[in-house]
């Protein structure tokens, strides 16, 4: 069927006249008027004496309603021009092959670029710091992806494991003087332990109920950290956390420092570059482990669990261990990321581990396309990098960001990379000769 035919048939089904558009825009404007009359039309503030003073801003209100009216017309015109969003559109083969090519090269290109970031932006400390932040969230996203994307267990308290990892390193390092490289695996193990601990009570829960319990778990960990002052320092946090060393060689200005040993001039950027490659290595390790696990029966069981728990049981999959390993693996990566966060900041406090962090990481996973490794990386870049990109917009930053997210979810409801690559490739099946395809003998 050719495209014009499709258009006309759609036009016949959906009202599209000017009157319809006008009516729709009018309704939108009316809703906006009702909503904004109090939000924008009346401005209240606490006066000098503590009383409430208010004044009206009807011009702002009128501008807002007009914007909604105009915007509604534009959206409706765009919608009629583009066709329905949920319909599969015919993509020309040229475009399809071009996107396939881009899809094949984007991951290696991104990886090479990431490796070169400290070289290209060596003098720009801000960009290096931002890149480290993005990579931290890539790692968190990949960790949560195991739980949410692969096993399909909605976890709203992922930040708890991030916090456990961060505090494990901070406390072990400040109290016992253990080095980063000793603490890193310990932080991961402790976080995994807490993952299993969370896993047990929620074994029978799914979906919304699971989300509520994990949300509570995240808050419990944070509240324990705040209130257990003797151990965690409470709201004051832990400070003086040792910086990571290059396998025992400190990255500072001293005579034992790496710069002195290599005979080059010391620069504080060295440590930033080191941190960059450290988190990059950790993130890539997370990715590699996840990819390997997906090809093993345990990873396959996670995905099957996401698809259909009853079928899993019918096939004799032990759903208990499957869920617990998913929680533990995801939590372990969160713990690693937490330890890195602590060593990078040098100071941690409960404020860094609020629900907002959980929500952000979850948004990265969902936006990236649940289960897609590349998608999560792109989403982390878009969420963290994009957020910084809009910094110039000041107070409208959140607004622009919110709109961008809504639009993305309309156009790509399954996330940036919604398709799922199969993990079983039967090379041997090619070798099965055609006589087996014929029905009959066994």
């Amino acid at each position: 069927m050719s495209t014009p035919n499709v258009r006309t048939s759609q036009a016949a089904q959906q009202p599209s006249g000017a009157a319809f558009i006008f009516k729709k825009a009018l309704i939108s404007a009316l809703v906006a008027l009702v909503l904004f009359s109090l939000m924008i039309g009346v401005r209240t503030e606490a006066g000098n004496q503590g009383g409430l003073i208010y004044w009206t801003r009807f011009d702002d209100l009128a501008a807002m309603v007009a914007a909604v009216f105009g915007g509604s017309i534009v959206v409706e015109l765009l919608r009629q021009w583009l066709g329905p969003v949920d319909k599969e559109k015919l993509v020309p083969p040229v475009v399809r092959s071009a996107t396939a090519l881009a899809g094949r090269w984007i991951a290696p290109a991104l990886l090479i670029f990431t490796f070169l970031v400290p070289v290209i932006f060596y003098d720009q400390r801000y960009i290096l710091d931002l890149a480290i932040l993005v990579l931290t969230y890539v790692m968190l996203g990949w960790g949560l992806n195991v739980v949410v994307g692969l096993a399909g267990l909605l976890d709203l308290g992922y930040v708890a494991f991030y916090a456990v990892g961060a505090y494990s390193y901070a406390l072990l390092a400040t109290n016992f003087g253990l080095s980063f490289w000793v603490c890193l695996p310990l932080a991961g193990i402790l976080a995994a332990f807490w993952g299993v601990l969370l896993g047990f009570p929620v074994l029978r829960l799914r979906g919304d109920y699971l989300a509520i319990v994990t949300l509570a778990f995240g808050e419990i960990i944070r509240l324990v950290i705040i209130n257990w002052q003797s151990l965690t320092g409470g709201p004051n946090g832990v400070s003086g956390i040792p910086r990571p060393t290059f396998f025992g060689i400190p990255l500072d200005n001293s005579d034992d420092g790496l710069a002195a040993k290599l005979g080059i001039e010391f620069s504080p950027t060295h440590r930033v570059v080191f941190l960059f490659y450290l988190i990059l290595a950790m993130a890539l390790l997370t990715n590699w482990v996840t990819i390997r696990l997906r090809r093993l029966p345990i990873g396959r069981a996670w995905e099957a669990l996401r698809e259909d728990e009853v079928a899993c049981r019918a096939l004799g999959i032990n759903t208990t261990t499957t869920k617990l390993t998913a929680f533990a693996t995801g939590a372990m990566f969160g713990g690693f990321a937490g330890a890195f966060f602590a060593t990078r900041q040098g100071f941690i406090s409960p404020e860094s581990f609020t629900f907002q962090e959980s929500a952000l990481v979850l948004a990265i996973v969902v936006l990236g396309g649940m289960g897609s490794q590349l998608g999560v990386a792109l989403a982390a870049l878009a969420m963290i990098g994009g957020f910084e990109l809009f910094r110039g917009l000041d107070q409208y930053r959140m607004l622009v960001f919110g709109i961008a997210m809504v639009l993305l979810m309309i156009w790509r409801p399954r996330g940036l990379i919604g398709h799922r690559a199969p993990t079983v490739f039967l090379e041997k099946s090619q070798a099965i000769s055609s006589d087996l395809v014929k029905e009959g003998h066994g």
Partner: protein
Amino acid sequence: MSAASTSTTPLLAIRGLRAAYGKIEALKGVDIEINPGEIVALIGANGAGKSTLMMTIFGKPRARAGQIEFDGRDITGVATHDIARLRIAQSPEGRRIFPRMSVAENLQMGADATDCSEAERASGLERVFTLFPRLKERIAQRGGTLSGGEQQMLAIGRALMSRPRLLMLDEPSLGLAPLIARQIFDAIRTLNRQDGLTVLIVEQNANHALKLAHRGYVMVNGLITLTGTGKELLQRPEIRAAYLEGGRHG
């Protein structure tokens, strides 16, 4: 075996089995025996407890009373995931394939829970492809994009991947076109004749199931009310009235 009066030991013997969902008793004392190499059909109306029986054999829900014996071993209290290791496979009601996973992955899932060697996996895969060549054509396709009949083939194929000694099928013809349903039944017959596979088939499509089966059980309200060979049952007037003429199910 003291209980067995016949010369062969039954592969699966169920005695006085009771199971319930909360306070609602779904099985009220069921006795069934399946001999090695047999196809046994379990027929009955909606809500008779057929699917519950199959799931109780798998330990979910647990039996409240009675005994399930597989190959002379009491498996009444064995954990669900360990029952599959005894090489009892199940194709659950409504097919329940994994929609976002490929056909190949779906099949591998069938072998994952059991301790199958690579060679066993490969031969299992060959067997499935011989039986259902359509699945080989669709090997890289996502399970959810298959037609209903192909999904049923995949569900049976997945169950076969664990190289079972007893295959339990819950309503394999549900929602399938008559021609496709016949293909499925033919495949079950082939499996039984060529591989000597023991099959328990739960069906509402009594006509097909009883023609295929060596023996049949009729279940009403959680109790076995009738038993006999497939041919005998097909000729019983009450069966004809309840399941073949008056009680046709879509």
